[in-house]
């Protein structure tokens, strides 16, 4: 995957992860696996984890420790009310950005 998509992904990863979690609770490994399946093959597990730590610190998700059959207990993240609000804001910003970029592409700025 090119450098450009990695750079663009950086700015949107938080919104993407919140959007994934709005569907259902998930743990870190599941989120990374899903992203890789979708073609973001360069995404590092640690990058997703650092982001999960951050959104937990900012109170956007609730965390539950669930025992796992292999290895240590897993932290399962679910979106809370504050996270949902944050996600709505992300989509509004996203719409704004894509609209403007589309205008630029069509040369009608």
């Amino acid at each position, binding site marked *: 995957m090119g450098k450009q998509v990695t750079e663009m992904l950086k700015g949107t990863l938080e919104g993407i992860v919140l959007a994934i979690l709005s569907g259902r609770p998930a743990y870190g*490994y599941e989120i990374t696996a899903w992203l890789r399946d979708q073609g973001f093959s*360069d995404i*590092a*597990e*640690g*990058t997703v984890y*650092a982001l999960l730590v951050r959104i937990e610190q900012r109170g956007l998700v609730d965390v539950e420790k669930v025992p796992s059959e292999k290895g240590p207990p897993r932290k399962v993240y679910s979106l809370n009310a504050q996270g949902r609000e944050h996600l709505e804001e992300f989509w509004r910003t996203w719409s704004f950005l894509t609209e403007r970029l589309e205008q630029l592409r069509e040369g009608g700025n």
Partner: protein
Amino acid sequence: MATESNEQKSRYRQYLEMVTGPLEDKRRYRQYKARTEQLPASYHTAIDALQRYMMFFGPGKADSLLAMLEDLADLFEQSAANGTPIRAVVGEDPVEFAEAFLRNYPEGQWISRERERLANAIDRVTDDKS
């Protein structure tokens, strides 16, 4: 993140810790080291290298530093258990990963103080106090 109970410390313990620093911190650090030693050899080497880097740039406060190391150990234990290769954990650029990770623990980082100082200096000469 385990926090010690707020039980009243004995006077002896209080004086001792003036010299040694909090004993809970040492216990937490030993616990973290013991966890890293349980990891497969290559994961252990990788986490040691990350720890070395993060100690240079990381939080100066013990509590924040230990929270960071414990979170790092969580990641490596999970990854080892899932069989995620180290390259897939830290990515193509381990420095970038380390920096992204470090930004979650700004408390007591000398670089945070310098960033604040820079922002304040510019605020003072621009009237933009917002």
